[in-house]
């Protein structure tokens, strides 16, 4: 399948009174048609800002995309005039946000919010749009869809609102859906329902998806490829199996080891990453993970580790990757 989205050398910065925050600092990745790609990382690593940059939703001031190319279906989104960009948003690329409570307009009915995108982006009449809205609600598993159209968001539970958000995202048959922590605010049984729904719908409709999350379990089940971000950069990417079974970056390894696992015997003590994530205004030229890294040497301070190929489609940015791999082999 062809490449649908290609991000190349993206830099997004926020110019604040405390200094320039390099939220996204040279991020490159691709998404193929129909593929699900995960972006994993902790708060402030730039995963959401990357997603907002794709849709050009970075507020200026203080934020600005300073460098890079975002090629979507052959066009560079960063060069498009604003009115053409509006056609892309919601039609070709749609977004599902984390908070189903705040991302729906509380004073508009579900029906109005669902048909709005269709009326804006397609030639559908109001009746056609309503008919399609009923279909969509049915597709995402909402009972009595006709009655729901007249209801307001506060009539619905969190899980139902997230289903409405998914219906809205699918309304104009997009090629790509960006889901930013789509289930973080939901309970675990509802999370399982929503993720299964998203997986089935994207597969049946052939929609590509970028799923942004900090939950490594969600990533394991629902994504083909994984990008791990730290301090504004992708530090490792590869297939889900590469990341989980053959991590080559100390941060990826530490993330995997710091969560207690349900399928393994209980450990006496967890193995956390010591220290705090770095201040993004104060990054030096070296590896940003260095102060928290168990494998760090003087070499790590000297320059930025480049992303290097360590297996088919598996790349890692670490000077000490050989040391890490051999120590893992010894341990097993």
């Amino acid at each position, binding site marked *: 399948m062809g490449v649908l989205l290609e991000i190349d050398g993206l830099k997004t910065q926020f110019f604040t009174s405390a200094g320039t925050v390099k939220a996204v600092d040279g991020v490159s990745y691709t998404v193929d048609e129909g593929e699900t790609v995960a972006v994993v990382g*902790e708060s402030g690593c730039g995963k959401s800002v990357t997603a907002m940059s794709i849709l050009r939703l970075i507020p200026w001031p203080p934020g600005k995309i300073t460098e890079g190319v975002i090629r979507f279906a052959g066009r560079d989104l960063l060069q498009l005039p604003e009115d053409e960009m509006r056609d892309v948003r919601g039609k070709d690329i749609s977004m599902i946000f984390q908070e189903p409570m705040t991302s729906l307009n509380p004073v508009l009915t579900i029906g109005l919010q669902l048909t709005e995108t269709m009326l804006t982006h397609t030639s559908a009449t109001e009746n056609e749009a309503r008919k399609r809205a009923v279909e969509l609600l049915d597709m995402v598993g909402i009972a009595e869809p006709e009655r729901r159209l007249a209801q307001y968001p506060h009539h619905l539970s969190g899980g*139902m609102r997230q289903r409405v958000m998914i219906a809205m995202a699918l309304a104009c048959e997009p090629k790509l859906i960006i889901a930013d922590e789509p289930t973080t605010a939901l309970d675990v049984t509802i999370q*399982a329902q929503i993720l*299964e729904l998203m997986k089935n719908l994207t597969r049946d409709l052939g929609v590509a998806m970028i799923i942004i999350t900090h939950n490594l379990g969600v990533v394991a089940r629902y994504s083909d490829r994984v990008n791990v971000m730290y301090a504004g950069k992708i530090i490792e990417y590869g297939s889900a199996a590469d990341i989980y079974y053959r991590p080559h970056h100390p941060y990826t390894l530490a993330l995997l080891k710091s969560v*207690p696992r349900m399928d393994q015997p209980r*450990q006496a003590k967890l193995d956390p990453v010591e220290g705090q*994530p770095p201040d993004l205004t104060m990054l030096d030229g070296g590896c940003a993970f260095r102060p928290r890294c168990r494998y760090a040497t003087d070499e790590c301070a000297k320059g930025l580790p480049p992303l290097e190929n360590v297996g088919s489609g598996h790349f890692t940015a670490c000077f000490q990757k050989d040391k890490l791999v051999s120590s893992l082999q010894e341990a097993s």
Partner: protein
Amino acid sequence: MTPSGQAAVQDSSHYRGNPTGEVLIDVRGLKMHFPVTEGVLIPRVVASVKAVDGLSFQIMKGETLGLVGESGCGKTTTGRCILQLENPTSGEIMFHGQDINGLDDKAMIDVRKKIQVIFQDPFSSLNPRMKIGEIITEPMKVHNIFPDEDARQKRAVDLLTTCGLKANFYDRYPHEMSGGQRQRVGIARALAMNPEFIICDEAVSALDVSIQAQVINLLEDLRDEFGLTYLFISHDLSVVRHICHRVAVMYLGHMVELADCDELFDNPIHPYSQALLEAVPIPDPDLENSREHKIIKGEIPSPISPPSGCVFHPRCPKAVAKCSNQFPELREVRPGHWVACTEV
């Protein structure tokens, strides 16, 4: 009969902490119904939200009891009732054999020193206008534990160090700290009173995974060092499995299952506990893809008008006709393993 933890806690090497046979907290038939009113000038009660509806359990000294369930199941309300931040509708909360329900304010002061809480949100649970030092010393001042200011300051600095923070945080404000550091301040504040019992209400849920592991380790170290007893309220089952000795599963104000941690996670009996465990994704792609996912349908009903009979029956894959009219009592199906389901 009240479910007790006696003889239930195993002596395995992977258990940390040291649960004893002595009962510290004994909750009997706790009910917390919040009135729903209509009318602005003359409000009248038209219904009630049955947040907690008849809950009984015991916590042994030195034990960590996990309380799990989804939003709205009443786990936080249970914690608030024990803290006497709510006035329970009925039931007894025995602390060291004394019912603290309805104690007058004066008698409550002594109890409050011994029962502390760590909240979920490290951003809203610290006063933004107070320095960290003031936040930690204030409870000591209020309870007149260290009348001397220098002694208080010394104790605060000790507590900061115990919780893995530098002594110079004493003069900082909460906004200068990260989420993990603030949560450590919350823990230091809870420890200031030398409590016996700490309620951890989603204490690590708002933290990033790498920081979460640090705070979990800290909570465990403190438990060992000071012989603390925890009620660990959380929706994160993998964290609960790691830290707890026994686990209680709640659904819509009722306890549906209570067992030893390993027993509950290895052999869940109640259909809701089974569904809850099934729903947790595991960070292992091959395992996830080969695992069958039985996803329960539907959503949690409103606690204003809970379903009749077993509250879980509308979503239950094993429900039979009598589940809709017969309320299942908790019963002991194996030693120390309590389940509220008539069909097992």
